[in-house]
């Protein structure tokens, strides 16, 4: 019994400590060519449904579940959201300010006017930024990447 307990204890600490050394998350990256975030933002329809590899600075990470992160574009003030299935990949909060290479599929998210307003309101509450909800008129579409794998440096 003592041996079993000791084994489990050692396994516990090994798992916790060694897993932080690697920042490979999800599936291993397969693509070599990096697509610029600005290119995807500029011509989203060309990339829709395609698997891409992007890299950039992590400027925000989901504070609740680590289920999304924002990657800064190569063009000032632009970014792209990486969304992953809850629990499949968990982006660590400490990753903010580090650079990431992310592979995933470009997808479109269609929002009704109510959904878009609710999302903007939620974002404003979280970030403290002022958002003019009256500017949201009608359904909107935004583009993001469904993350499959990532390397955080």
């Amino acid at each position, binding site marked *: 019994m003592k041996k*079993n307990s000791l084994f489990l204890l050692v396994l516990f600490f090994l798992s916790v400590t060694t897993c932080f050394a690697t920042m490979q998350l999800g599936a291993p990256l397969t693509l070599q060519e990096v697509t610029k975030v600005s290119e995807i933002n500029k011509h989203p329809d060309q990339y829709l449904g395609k698997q891409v590899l992007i890299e950039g600075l992590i400027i925000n990470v989901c504070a609740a579940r680590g289920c999304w992160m924002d990657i800064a574009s190569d063009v000032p003030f632009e970014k792209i959201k990486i969304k992953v299935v809850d629990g499949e990949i968990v982006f660590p909060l400490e990753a903010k300010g580090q650079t990431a290479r992310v592979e995933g599929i470009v997808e479109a998210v269609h929002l009704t006017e109510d959904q878009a307003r609710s999302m903007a309101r939620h974002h404003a509450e979280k970030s403290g930024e002022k958002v003019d909800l009256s500017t949201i008129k009608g359904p909107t579409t935004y583009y993001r990447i469904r993350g499959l794998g990532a390397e955080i440096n």
Partner: protein
Amino acid sequence: MSWRKWNFVLHRDLGYLCIGLTLLYGISGLAVNHTSHAFNPSYTIETQKGQVSPLPSGKVPDMSYVNQCLAELSITAQFKNVAMLNPETIRIFVEGNTIDVIVATGETIKEKIERRPLLFGINYLHLNKGKGTWTWVADIYALAICLLALTGLFMIRSKGRRRALFLTTIGFLCPLLYLLLKPS
């Protein structure tokens, strides 16, 4: 040895083996059950407003301004990176902190992130963030508690059978009733 004795030994020893992990999953379960944007079970997140000198109009924020902001806020943690979120706001990343500076006014919002002691580790295991080896351990544990439940069922003696059946039925009914009655 009779099957009842084997069943008892299996139930007892599995019970001992599962104590540690059951407590780990139980405590972590309580924490992750209440995950929301206001509560992260693995990290403490504190935000604090502050003030630095605004950037003189017409000037573009550069590293000297970033260093000036950090100095004015008495932040000595290791600098990681800086990003221009929009024309009005820069985000400075240092080890453990993120600082948003509205350059025109000098208003700052500092976000401090710290791992919760103990909970960070047990949530890491519970949510299987490491995958790999831990998936095996967690699978074996899951099978072990299924066995624990089944062997427990066979430990029911004739004396307390009615009570045992009543409590076991409640255990099954709880999730079933919830699923049946929950609003769609």
